[in-house]
């Protein structure tokens, strides 16, 4: 497999997973930017474990997932049912805090970053295949879990919370518990993504985890469609691919192009390119074909 394709596929998978990590809490009207801080914390933790403590990658990856999940759960105890704005502020604050913490920890390279992370398998080719398979297995598993969530009572409850919290409460939905569940799950996924993200580059630098990432994931969700999980699957490769294929003369207008796409989608199709109705229609058509 060519290197270009490898990087395109792996980073696209990270975008899909991380955008789902924002999408899921957004189902209960939470913009949970804590996930970017989870990426950073778990990534650096795993990097330190593998490089300095010589722990196997698989163990470090699990630790990354766990760290993400634990931090997500602890924070969700306080903001599980908080208003959208509060969740946003907490997320941004955590990004600041975690960046400042890493800047001051020499053991993880501080402002210089971590270099030369070892390969996760014996050769560069095996390293790449391992990460690629791992990532797409994760996409399938996380996608399946989100799909099941969407088609469960919890998913329907989330839809009510998104529209009106009071209504949801009156219908017996435990808003805080639901918020805790989706926030913790998102943080857990983000933790694992942070680990793999660094091992794709085989290095960690604080500027891998900037607010720019928040912008990318938000654009993916709102262009693809914030009401279904499928919009992300469409928008992540399209938007990332677009930035790579733009001719040099147009590339400097990249941000303008993204902005124009986002505005156009928000004006013309406020729910995003893949709406819930469209997703439902496709699912119905597919299931009919299967029955035939």
């Amino acid at each position, binding site marked *: 497999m060519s*290197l270009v394709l490898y990087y395109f596929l792996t980073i696209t998978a990270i975008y899909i997973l991380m955008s789902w990590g924002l999408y899921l809490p957004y189902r209960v009207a939470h913009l949970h930017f804590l996930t970017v801080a989870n990426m950073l914390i778990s990534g650096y933790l795993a990097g330190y474990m593998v490089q300095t403590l010589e722990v196997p990658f698989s163990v470090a990856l699990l630790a990354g997932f766990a760290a993400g999940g634990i931090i997500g759960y602890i924070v969700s105890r306080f903001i599980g049912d908080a208003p959208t704005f509060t969740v946003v502020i907490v997320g941004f604050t955590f990004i600041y805090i975690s960046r400042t913490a890493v800047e001051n920890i020499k053991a993880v390279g501080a402002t210089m970053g971590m*270099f030369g992370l070892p390969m996760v398998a014996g050769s560069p080719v095996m390293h790449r295949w391992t990460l690629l398979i791992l990532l797409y297995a994760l996409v399938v598993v996380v996608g399946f879990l989100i799909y099941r969530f969407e088609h469960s009572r919890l998913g329907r409850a989330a839809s009510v919370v998104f529209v009106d919290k009071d209504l949801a409460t009156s219908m017996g939905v435990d808003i805080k518990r639901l918020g805790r569940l989706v926030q913790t799950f998102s943080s857990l996924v983000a933790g694992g993504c942070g680990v793999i993200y660094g091992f794709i580059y*085989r*290095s960690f630098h604080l500027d*891998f985890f900037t607010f720019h990432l928040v912008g990318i994931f938000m654009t993916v969700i709102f262009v693809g469609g914030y009401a279904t999980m499928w919009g992300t699957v469409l928008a992540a490769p399209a938007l990332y691919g677009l*930035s790579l294929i733009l001719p*040099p003369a147009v590339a*400097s207008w990249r941000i303008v192009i993204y902005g124009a796409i986002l505005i156009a989608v928000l004006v013309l199709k406020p729910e995003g390119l893949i709406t819930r109705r469209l997703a439902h229609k496709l699912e119905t058509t597919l299931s009919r074909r299967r029955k035939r």
Partner: protein
Amino acid sequence: MNKKMLSLLAVLLLIASIVGAGGQGDSGSSGGAGVVVEEWEIPFLNSLTGAIASIGEYLQWGAERAAFEINEAGGIAGKPVKVIGVDTALEPQKGVVEMSKIVEWALVALGPVPEPVIMAAAPIAVENEMMTMTATTSLEYAEKFFPWSISWFPATADRLPPLARDWAKDYGVKKVVQFVGIYGPWPGMAAAHVVGIKEAGAQHLGDVEVPQDAVTFGPLVVKALGMNPDGIIIACWPDKAAKIVQELKSRGWTDMEKILLFSSADDAALYTTGGADLNGTIIYNYINVDQDTPRWNAFKEAYQKDHNGLQPPSLSTNYYDAVYMIKRAIEETGVTGDPKKLKEERKLIAEAMFNMKNFEGLLFKWDMSDGVPTNKPGYLFQIQDGRKKLVKEIRN
């Protein structure tokens, strides 16, 4: 028989003349024998858009200026050279894909720029055994990718202490507080300043951290002045450095020469933000814009023509020199550009650069020793009305 002998002689003469002409061609093409490319293409993994686009522009300008001059003078081994700007937009995600494309065909690459993209993309060049010239970062980053990278600067711990030491000695500074931006190699540079201050017999009272998102500087300056320093070193972003100087002045600081600005602050944003408030302050850097050599004057004139009369910034010469270094490496090693020999020719170029001696840079001559430049000077300047006036040249 005579006829046969004559015919044989004629044939032999013909063969001899053809062989002779061929030989002359070989020796007379100044290393161009066997070159198979019509044009040397050098990709430059640069940040042409995004937060540091203004820096990326003049880095690119420097590289293209070198290519222009080289082509005017006959090219590299007789073939023209072209620098291809490849924009990473400061994004590692884009940097890795672009580097992946480059390693499929290029003999050598310029960049990446800056550190986050270097860290993500340079390992791809290393894995594919291709020299990638990270000419804007410190040795501490570049050395991680040796021998497939070279450093443009000596070790921070070697080059900065003499500059801070001489500043402290020459201006009678005894007690120093330092403003430090927390970014990449800057804390390491700040630590090297402290070594120099101590060598001068001065005291380091402490550091004041400058956050990347700082917009007001009053509290930071009050904190620094609270330590009662008689000298200040500022090692942070150019615009913020200018605002700190302004804040110091507004709080009664008058000994402007006892303020030392570090090299990374030497950018247009420093002068446009600081204006006349910077007058008298000292700044260190690695190029002397007041040199008077035909080559430098031509560069400066061309730069000013293309940039509304602005002085060439300190980093503008780095990739200019890098392109010339590539030219010398190709010509000295007899690289042909044949795609079938890509791997071995990459190695030849890398080896030639790694220990290149007597390299004629735009402003001075230097040697590379195992990827690290030696005998490069540093300079102390005094700022006056937006211009730098040379105070001292310092060599390790």
